[in-house]
């Protein structure tokens, strides 16, 4: 049941308990308890809204930064990664296979903000060899949601 609940929450974290209950075949109370325990266990870390900021008129600056790191003998990439993860500017951070090691998504109010984070903070961390910053120009899709609004298409209301 927990797996089914997680699937539904991943699709819509604001789905009502009653709807989840109906769809997984449980009572709302059971669903509530299951979600609570998933939160307690740390499987669910939070709930987040997916925004299309371009409709909002707020212009945050986002950048994807590829970072090369010298792994430590004791602990590999984890220590550097955990250090980088603590910066609030960093919204996402992954260890990646291929030509670089860490992939960061960084958010700031302006280009300047992000640039100074990279030069003053990120590059100076012990173990960071090089960084390559790409500023995000347009968002097409996030967390499975496409940003472009399709033309409305109405299916027949009654058909055989």
């Amino acid at each position, binding site marked *: 049941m927990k797996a089914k609940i997680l699937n539904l929450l991943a699709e819509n974290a604001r789905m009502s308990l009653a709807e989840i209950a109906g769809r997984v075949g449980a009572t709302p109370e059971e669903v509530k308890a299951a979600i609570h325990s998933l939160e307690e266990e740390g499987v669910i870390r939070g709930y987040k809204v997916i925004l299309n900021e371009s409709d909002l008129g707020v212009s945050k600056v986002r950048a994807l930064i590829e970072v090369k790191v010298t792994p430590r003998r004791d602990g590999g990439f984890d220590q550097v990664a955990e250090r980088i993860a603590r910066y609030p500017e960093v919204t996402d951070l992954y260890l990646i296979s291929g030509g670089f090691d860490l992939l960061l998504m960084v958010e700031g109010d302006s280009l300047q903000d992000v640039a100074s984070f990279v030069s003053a903070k990120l590059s100076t961390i012990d173990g960071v060899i090089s960084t390559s910053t790409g500023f995000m120009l347009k968002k097409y899709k996030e967390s499975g949601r496409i940003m472009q609004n399709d033309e409305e298409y109405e299916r027949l209301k009654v*058909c055989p």
Partner: protein
Amino acid sequence: MMKNMNDSKCAHREFVAEHVKQLPKSGIRRFFDLVNTMDDVISLGVGEPDFVTPWTIRETGIFSLEKGHTSYTSNLGTPALRREVCRYVEKNYHVSYNPDNECIITIGVSEALDIAMRALLNPGDEVLYTEPCFVSYPAEVRMAHGVPVPVETRFEDEFALDPEMLRAKITPKTRVLLLNFPCNPTGAVMPVDKLRKVAEIAIEHDLVVITDEIYSELLYEGEHVSIASLPGMRERTLFLHGFSKAFAMTGWRIGYACGPREIIDAMMKVHQYAIMCASTMAQEAALEALRNGEKEMARMRDSYCERRNLIVDGLNRIGLECLLPKGAFYAFPSIRSTGLDSTEFAEQLLKAERVAVVPGVAFGACGEGFVRCCYATAASEIMEALDRMGRFMESLKQQ
């Protein structure tokens, strides 16, 4: 002076053929017109998936156009699609067909059914079919100058076909038995023991069985058994299937028929003169559906299953007795407790609470006392519809 052709004195013979004039307009059509005059309607009245065709299939259709594949295909359909269809049918239904001459690609099951009737029936031949049923069946038979003979299916049999009721309707003129399980509108499936008995009756009376298995992937309990796979049935069964429901491709109009060469050959003649071939783009998209669409299909099926549980629980809770349908995406609750007939129920519900359901009588006389609620609708809409229907039921009690 020009003669006024609209002059009533200018008598002419009947333009419309008698057997077409006699065809009733689909009961759904009238209801559709009524729904369309209203806003804010939650519709449980559709007969199609609420998913858009999976992207990989759509993209293949687009690519087909980009490549310039815009000419006719072979009458039977592209060899690649026929091969893939036969592979799919063998794997999932355990009947093997030769793609060269035992399979034809059609414009949905609707066309397959039409050309099958035209290929199989002599005027006056009787076709048995189960009711309640898809609205086209009796009309398809009449258009081919056959005589449609309904066999009732009942709530107490979970709307499965009772072999003895079938037997009672057989006459020397009976030629064809038309089956549709899982069933639109009841969601019923055929238990294997009953299916075996039906097969025995078909053999005993030398009937051709046409089996429309368009909903067979959308099965939520048990395993689907095609009558074509039962002993002695392959040679007298025409297996109809398509992509509309399982792959959410209703608007593409693409389906197929598999059967004995003699029947496919005959259907092919009608098809080549009437249709030529199914659209090339849709055939290429359908091929992609069979090659890479099964995962998406399973995802959609699981989603229907969740919503089935939601709606059936809800209907029973508000006092509309409803079986748990094992397949398709329709719930078929009884509305007899309200004292209304199904048309009154549907119209009053629509006017009072703006929920559209389809009167059971649209699917045949024995559908009276029931309504069809399609649950291929967003779960949140189903819940809202159930709230509104609950309110409607309360208001009936107070009258």
